[in-house]
């Protein structure tokens, strides 16, 4: 089972994260899938290694999920970490994707939580629609048409 996202949904997700950056006065907002792949990001991402950040965010959600299981909880869907200059709020959305908001003193935790809640609902709708559409698309990927030669060419030094 592959996760395939087309421009239409990615644009919808981008609208939500762009809006969240503004509404929450955030520095950065990221959407990450539970396996650690970055789906979308917005804000001051130029000097930020978002690929590494995505894998670590997914790692902490996975670790908390493991802890929840041991404690007979379903999930611990929300995490908040406070630093000196930066804080991070991590929210599991619909058990599918992770919404991370990085913010500083320009925002408050209360504001971030409020805005995250609204954005989570919107994201949930987008990903639910995506899941419904998946069977109709038949799981087709651009990789259906590649040849063994294409793959070999990738490894020619």
């Amino acid at each position, binding site marked *: 089972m*592959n996760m395939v996202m087309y421009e239409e949904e990615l644009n919808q997700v981008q609208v939500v994260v762009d809006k969240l950056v503004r509404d929450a006065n955030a520095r950065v907002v990221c959407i990450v899938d539970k396996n650690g792949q970055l*789906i979308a990001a917005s804000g001051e991402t130029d000097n930020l290694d978002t690929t590494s950040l995505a894998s670590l965010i997914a790692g902490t959600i996975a670790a908390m999920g493991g802890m929840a299981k041991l404690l007979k909880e379903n999930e611990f869907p929300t995490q908040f970490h406070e630093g000196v200059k930066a804080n991070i709020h991590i929210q599991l959305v619909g058990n599918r994707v992770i919404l991370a908001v990085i913010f500083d003193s320009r925002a408050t935790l209360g504001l971030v939580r409020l805005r995250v809640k609204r954005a989570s609902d919107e994201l949930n709708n987008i990903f639910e629609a995506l899941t419904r559409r998946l069977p109709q698309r038949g799981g087709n990927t651009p990789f259906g048409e590649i040849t063994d030669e294409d793959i070999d060419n990738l490894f020619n030094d």
Partner: protein
Amino acid sequence: MSFINYLSREINCKIVYYGPGLCGKTTNLQWIYQRTAPEAKGKMISLATEQDRTLFFDFLPLSLGEIRGFKTRFHLYTVPGQVFYDASRKLILKGVDGVVFVADSQVERMEANMESLENLQLNLSEQGYQLEKIPYVIQYNKRDLPNIASVAELRELLNPLKATEYEAIASRGNGVFDTLKAVAKLVLTELKKGSGG
């Protein structure tokens, strides 16, 4: 589970290096990191203990180039090899597209190899995967050490599935890229199959 992004035209796949403690999983990633052009790699992240033993995972993102206009990206992970970190290993296997089993060729590590391989099969099956059905490559590491088992012995004990196998000295880079290329190729071939091509 690979992630295909039509907007940025990228395909992302996850490869996990598995094996007993101190078999050389992190060393494989370190060699790949050192020998890859800066534009093709991201930062290598190691979540390790103070003694440099992997605590949660190592992570290295790599770009291999384009196929039909899609950038192919591989995210390489290692698991912590020590037996008591099993809960963490299970988490890292989630959504895996391909597995490399790194075996320690030393005779005294044979039991640890077998235990880790069984553990891999068990943890995969908990996620609904089967080792015989996913892209999988085995590496016999530390071929430069004195007290090692022969490849025939290793094969008999550790490779009943007859997976593609490589001898390696990861600390010197021997066999490291061969292993990576083999598993990456299998992952891409699987994607092609999976999409009905």
